[in-house]
């Protein structure tokens, strides 16, 4: 589902955030990406949804080689992925329903199907009763649930999450993790960058550790592995 082949990413300011990363993530896997701040986790994630282009090497997502991808094809890639961010990235002027529906409107889905599908995912994340509320009226955990609903509403093969629990309190974080596990159990591949050692050590999954732009550890059912 996700392959990286000797990927190097060098930023214009000289920082090398990926220094020859190769990885193969299979369909249906749940993968944590861990590592100290500034080690290249975010770049690793951004390379997957083509916010960043690799300096060299290949990134292949769901059969699309991102090196050959033209700018105008990027929307096609992003429709195959769901992306969840630490800061939720909801559209502030749209309400809960509209935020989730937006991901279906961009693919010009039939309005009847949009309604049905949006209510389904809002039910899944437990926000069916707050469809008319705006993001600033919701708690952080609720906002993140909206953002997850949006990321899965068009049934992507992969959900990529960049520290989805980073801004949330522990209790809410567990609720969010439950949703991710539920999504994963339905066959969606999940790649999640995280700093939350408790989660990684409790819900055991494949763990990829990145340091200095390199994968230093790749263990199935591994632990967080960093102190504090």
């Amino acid at each position, binding site marked *: 589902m996700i392959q990286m082949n000797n990927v190097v990413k060098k930023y214009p300011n000289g920082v090398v955030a990926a220094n020859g990363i190769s990885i193969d993530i299979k369909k249906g896997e749940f993968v944590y990406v861990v590592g100290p701040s500034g080690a290249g986790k975010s770049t690793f994630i951004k390379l997957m*949804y083509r*916010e960043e282009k690799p300096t060299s090497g290949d990134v292949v997502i*769901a*059969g*699309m080689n991102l090196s050959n991808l*033209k*700018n*105008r*094809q*990027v*929307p*096609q*890639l*992003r*429709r*195959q992925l769901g*992306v969840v961010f630490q800061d939720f*990235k*909801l*559209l*502030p*002027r749209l309400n809960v329903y509209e935020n989730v529906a*937006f*991901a279906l*409107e*961009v*693919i*010009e889905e039939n*309005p009847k199907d949009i309604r049905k599908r949006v209510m389904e995912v809002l039910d899944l994340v437990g926000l069916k009763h707050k469809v008319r509320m705006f993001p600033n009226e919701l708690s952080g955990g609720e906002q993140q649930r909206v953002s997850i609903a*949006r990321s899965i509403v*068009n049934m992507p093969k992969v959900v990529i999450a960049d520290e989805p629990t980073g801004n949330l309190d522990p209790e809410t974080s567990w609720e969010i993790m439950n949703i991710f596990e539920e999504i994963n159990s339905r066959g969606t591949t999940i790649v999640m960058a995280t700093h939350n050692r408790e989660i990684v050590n409790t819900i055991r999954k494949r763990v990829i550790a990145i340091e200095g732009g390199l994968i230093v550890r790749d263990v199935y059912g591994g632990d967080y592995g960093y102190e504090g």
Partner: protein
Amino acid sequence: MYEMYTEVTTAMKGRTIRRHFRESIKSLGRNGWMTFASISAVTVTLLLVGVFTIIMMNLNKVADDIEKDVEVKVLIEIIADPAEAKSAEAKLMKDIKNLPGVSEVVYSSKEQELDLLIESYGEDLSLFEQSNPLNNVLYVKAKEPQQTVNVAKKIEKFDNVNDVKYGEEKVGKLFSFLNTSRNVGLVLILGLLFTAIFLISNTIRITIIARKDEIEIMKLVGATNSFVRIPFVIEGMWLGVLGSIVPMTIVSIVYVNIFKVLQPKLNGELLQILDVTPLLYQVNALILVMGILIGVWGSFMSVRKFLKV
């Protein structure tokens, strides 16, 4: 899997276009103050444009009228024999008509000339009716007012011409003055247009910069550039339309009233202002079209900057 490589070039569905319109109107409401700021900028500048255009068009009309009023007065030599006089006058008239650049020749006998004088200066002059000292006259108009001087000089050389009058120096100065004022007016309007474009598109840019994050999010969710851009551009169009309502109303009401007050006073005078009907349609159309163009263009350019996510 490779079907994903196809670009998003399929024609936009009707319901998506309707969605863009819905979205643009919703956005106007939800952006309250930003919408208000943009509309105000459009309103103020278009009001200036409208007022200046009306002033300039009227000045132009006055200049045209003055120019058209310029004519050459040809005094015909007095010939004693009536038959001879008649044929000489006919020949002169034909010659003048054949001159290039002449549009109109009107004959006025010395009796008619005296009537004109009596009309202007009073019955005292009626004693001249016994022995009229005036000449028969031809009034000549040039096709282009600027040719007046040339035409007059040519007529001077014809036979049986006693004198040619056209206010030599005055006409020259008048024309150069009118031309200068027209050019100044044109420069003023152009300057104002550029200011308007700059001011309005800048205001719109600021409101869109405030929504930079929104554009970025839309792109991250998989929206194509046009999907993001079209609602903004339609919104720009609404801003233009809404912003031109007040200027159109003010300009129309004020001009109609000015016309009502001035028109009776100017009746029969050389100086005339433009009629309400074609002028207000033209100026209002100009205001509306400019508002829409600037709104659309301003939005288009401003969104473009943020689409490269």
